[in-house]
């Protein structure tokens, strides 16, 4: 489970009281169901209130729960006939990224996802979900294969970032990420990306250049982790909570900024409380996306994706306090005002 989150403490205390009361009733054979109903009602209200008004930092806490469903938890709930494919054919197999072929409602797809561990042992094996270049190159190999066989691609983003290590740098971490952005932009099959937990920096984007970006309600996605942002901006990683607010990293922030297409609501308290029900909600969203993208020709699929990224950015060309000295002036039809 990991450490208890501060904001959930009152809920857990109340849950404890209810359990105690139930035990007491069972042991003593006294009917206190009125009292019990009252407490359960209070719990329901408290949960609704607490989980209905979570701060960005509280969501980060939920996104990091050790028992939060991972890529490999969702795959059997969403797909049939999954066959994992290993290796980048260049150096090795990175278990921080899993990928393979499967069927989604009978339709052949390629599935790729970042994979963290669900306990310490598995986390060590999976490098805490932080890929090396070979992970990104495996993902690219599978995406190119999908392109060849006209299979849609579904990716699951869940990483604290690409691994910052010596070997990763030596083998070209930058190039591996850059290459994926470059090649993904040009794929002619639909790419749907789902942020299921954490989405930090280029390590997330490297499997995230999609036609549609979906995001679970309590996941986060940004240029850097809140801790990293705080350390860089204010030289104090302890201000991560403030950074989580300022950096606008939650699903609803990203929806407002126009970066993501759909926000998938989570089951009360977070996906970990009912992975099966959560998978059903992801399934619904994916079906809708597949139907929308299924209408497009391969060229339209590519053009839609290119247009999506082409438009991202917030800038102004009509600055008044300076004279434009440039001889060449570019068409400004695509400027956002």
């Amino acid at each position, binding site marked *: 489970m990991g450490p208890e989150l501060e904001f959930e403490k009152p809920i857990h205390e109340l849950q404890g009281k209810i359990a105690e009361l139930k035990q007491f009733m069972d042991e003593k054979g006294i009917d206190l169901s009125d009292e019990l109903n009252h407490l359960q009602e209070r719990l329901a209200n408290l949960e609704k209130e607490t989980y209905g008004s979570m701060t960005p930092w509280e969501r980060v806490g939920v996104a990091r729960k050790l028992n939060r469903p991972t890529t490999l938890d969702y795959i059997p709930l969403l797909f049939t006939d999954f066959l994992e494919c290993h290796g980048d054919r260049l150096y090795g197999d990175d278990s921080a990224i899993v990928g393979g072929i499967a069927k989604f409602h009978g339709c052949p797809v390629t599935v790729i996802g970042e994979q963290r561990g669900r306990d310490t042992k598995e986390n060590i094996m999976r490098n805490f979900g932080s890929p090396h270049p070979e992970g990104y190159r495996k993902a690219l190999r599978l995406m190119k294969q999908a392109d060849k066989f006209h299979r849609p691609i579904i990716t699951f983003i869940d990483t604290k970032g690409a691994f910052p290590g010596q070997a990763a740098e030596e083998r070209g971490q930058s190039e591996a990420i850059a290459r994926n952005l470059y090649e993904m932009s*040009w794929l002619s099959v639909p790419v749907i990306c789902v942020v299921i937990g954490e989405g930090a920096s280029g390590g997330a984007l490297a499997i995230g250049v999609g036609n549609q970006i979906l995001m679970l309600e309590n996941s986060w996605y940004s240029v850097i982790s809140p801790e990293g942002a705080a350390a860089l901006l204010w030289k104090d990683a302890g201000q991560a909570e403030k950074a989580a607010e300022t950096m606008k990293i939650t699903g609803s922030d990203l929806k407002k900024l126009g970066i993501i297409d759909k926000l998938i609501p989570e089951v009360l308290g977070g996906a970990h409380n009912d992975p099966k029900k959560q998978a059903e909600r992801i399934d619904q969203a994916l079906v809708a996306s597949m139907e929308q993208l299924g209408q497009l020709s391969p060229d339209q699929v590519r053009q839609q994706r290119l247009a999506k990224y082409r438009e991202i950015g917030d800038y*102004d*060309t009509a600055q008044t306090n300076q004279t434009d000295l440039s001889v060449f002036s570019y068409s400004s039809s695509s400027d956002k005002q």
Partner: protein
Amino acid sequence: MKDFFTKKKKYATVPSAKARQDVPEGIVRKCPKCKKIMYVKELKKHLFVCQSCGYHYPIGAYERAEMLFDADSYVEFDKNMVSLNPLQFPNYMHKLESDRKKTKLNEAVWTGKGRIEGCECAVAIMDKGFRMGSMGSVVGEKITRMVEYAGKQGIPVIIFSASGGARMQEGVLSLMQMAKTSAALKGFSENGGLYISIMTHPTTGGVSASFASLGDYNLAEPGALIGFAGRRIIEQTIGAELPPDFQTAEFLLKHGQLDQVIPRAELRTVLGQILSIHTEGSAEAWDRN
């Protein structure tokens, strides 16, 4: 005995006001590597490369443009494009304003076109003096427009990277500029466009992990710091000290990430060589022989 050491301080010579005026700031610069002092005039003649140890001083975008292009052959694009502070990040506009004054640039990249050894090219030059050369919406948009222009005109693209990575204050929008610029270069490449990437000090983070690494030719200046993650973070992660040459241009060359490391003085010649091979070296040229 104590007096013996402290006494001297009392008589330390303080240069007179007149003497200080004799050496105004900006006339000489001390090499950060070999500590040799050189006249700025002399340094400029040698393209800001230390003649004693070969250290390449980081240079601004305008200085770079001046030494790169054939005389009077270049124009600037999108000079006035500015950021709109999409996250309403506190103090961000103020910081941009102060860097504008410092660098005379409106953003961390100069884009334009001009002739290099007679060949017309579209060029981006990043300036680390502006927000550490970080990439936000404006840097992404200016580079994308420049690449699109090159595609339409059928001319090569050259990008000089100098960046600490993505711009923190624009959050996820900065991250997405990595995808935007990479996608623009992919489209350009699919149409047969030539792209030469030149990594200068420093080329790290989101810039290293997007357009800087995607050249048909990846070149770098000697001694440039190039990498994805910061040295301190890697040392903390692996719990060990890294070799001194880690993440230098020479280190990347050794690990197969670069075509060549090119000293600044030779760059124009090498670019001319690549450009001439791409304009003349086609199958048709062979047929004519």
